[in-house]
């Protein structure tokens, strides 16, 4: 165990070490009195197991020291041990992430060892929580993806058991919807920020997958702004994009090929606009179909609007506008 003691006053360092030895007899004590000794203490990736630091050090302060120690060991327990403190500094210390605050006095010195033991126990708990959280996330991720694969497999079995072409096609659409959600889920997990997802990358991957189903000569152009979208907006928006792009690929080009333009950008109020434009002779949408009903319902959920206009000389332009948060709809 490595305990870093940071204090300008060598006497207090000695007193602190003496107090801590009662609790941590075999620990290695590293005394820090200036930047050089701090650098040495944390050199070569050496991680402290406990930091005991004064508030005011001649060359820096305890908060900076905590930052340095936590950079080396993110879960490192830490105690502020100071004689110059007051209530305000104590509150600041706890808010900054110190586990405890002990006043330098002969009476309090006895409490230092107990406070240190508690801080180390809390550090251990933090570390194991962190590890458990990672394990749990990975387990859930694995289960989720396996189950999504099972769902897609079951849809495919059902589809293959059907004679009716129309029914088979509808199940194919259902499989694509589940796949679209899976792609989004994958992006969300890989981004490591479980609250937001990079929507531009999602759209590229989605289109890549859908193009493989419709191999006729359709060129795709993207005009995408790389903005992270909160997950509760991203899910309905992902399903919407899947419907609009699938619709265009199925109905717009009539096996003749053409151009599909996909755009996504932020609006001034912090909302989003998703655009799917085709130049095909067919209608890019069938207004009474399930796909368009989903698009309208999802837009409603987002408090947004769907706009479908004819492109000149031919084709269809679809715009889905989602207002920014905070705007009264």
């Amino acid at each position: 165990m490595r305990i870093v003691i940071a204090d300008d006053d060598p006497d207090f360092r000695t007193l602190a070490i003496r107090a801590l030895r009662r609790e941590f007899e075999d620990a290695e004590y590293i005394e820090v009195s200036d930047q050089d000794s701090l650098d040495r203490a944390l050199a070569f990736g050496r991680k402290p197991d406990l930091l005991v630091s004064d508030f005011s050090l001649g060359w820096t302060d305890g908060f900076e020291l905590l930052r340095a120690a936590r950079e080396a060991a993110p879960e490192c327990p830490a105690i502020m041990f100071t004689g110059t403190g007051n209530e305000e500094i104590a509150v600041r210390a706890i808010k900054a992430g110190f586990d405890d605050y002990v006043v330098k006095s002969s009476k309090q010195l006895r409490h230092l060892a107990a406070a240190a033991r508690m801080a180390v126990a809390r550090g251990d708990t933090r570390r194991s929580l962190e590890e458990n959280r990672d394990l749990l996330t990975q387990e859930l991720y694995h289960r989720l993806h396996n189950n999504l694969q099972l769902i897609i497999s079951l849809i495919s079995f059902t589809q293959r058991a059907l004679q009716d072409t129309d029914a088979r096609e509808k199940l194919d659409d259902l499989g694509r919807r589940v796949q679209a959600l899976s792609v989004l889920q994958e992006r969300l997990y890989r981004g490591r920020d479980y609250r937001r997802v990079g929507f531009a990358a999602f759209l590229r991957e989605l289109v890549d997958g859908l193009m493989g189903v419709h191999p006729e000569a359709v060129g795709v152009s993207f005009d995408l702004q790389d903005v992270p979208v909160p997950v509760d907006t991203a899910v309905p928006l992902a399903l919407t994009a899947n419907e609009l792009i699938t619709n265009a690929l199925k109905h717009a080009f009539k096996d003749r090929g053409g151009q599909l333009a996909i755009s996504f950008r932020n609006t001034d109020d912090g909302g989003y606009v998703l655009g799917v434009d085709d130049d095909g002779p067919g209608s890019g949408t069938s207004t009474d179909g399930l796909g368009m009903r989903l698009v309208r319902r999802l837009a409603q959920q987002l408090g947004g609007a769907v706009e479908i206009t004819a492109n000149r000389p031919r084709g269809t332009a679809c715009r889905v506008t989602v207002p920014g948060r905070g705007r009264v709809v």
Partner: protein
Amino acid sequence: MPGDGSGARARRLRVLIVEDEILIADYLALLLEDAGHEIAGTAVTAKEALEVLDGSDPVDLVTLDVRLPGGMDGVQLAEILNERSGPPFLFITGSGDPVHRARCEAAAPLAILQKPVRPEALWEVVETAARAQSARARGR
């Protein structure tokens, strides 16, 4: 549908599917059959897979799940395949664990496909493998 019809006709491959979820194995088998390939067998554990590989019927390609019951996982099985210069393989995994992924990459697979697998992505990997094996067969 699979195959774009361009270039030389790639050969039909005999594929071994290693996957502990039997319904997922069945689905992968259907996808591979859609693309004109043949199923050499399906195995739930690495041990079963090795039995198929040691059998008399040839195996041209192996799809590997990473997490398998029975003590040996898909990556360990891949390492055995590499040691004995066995058939090429690809991973089809539900795991997003970066450590797993790094282990998979180190085994030099044809591809690592994430579950739920896109049929087109699977067809593309298998098609590329089939073309490579056809080219080698012609070269002999």
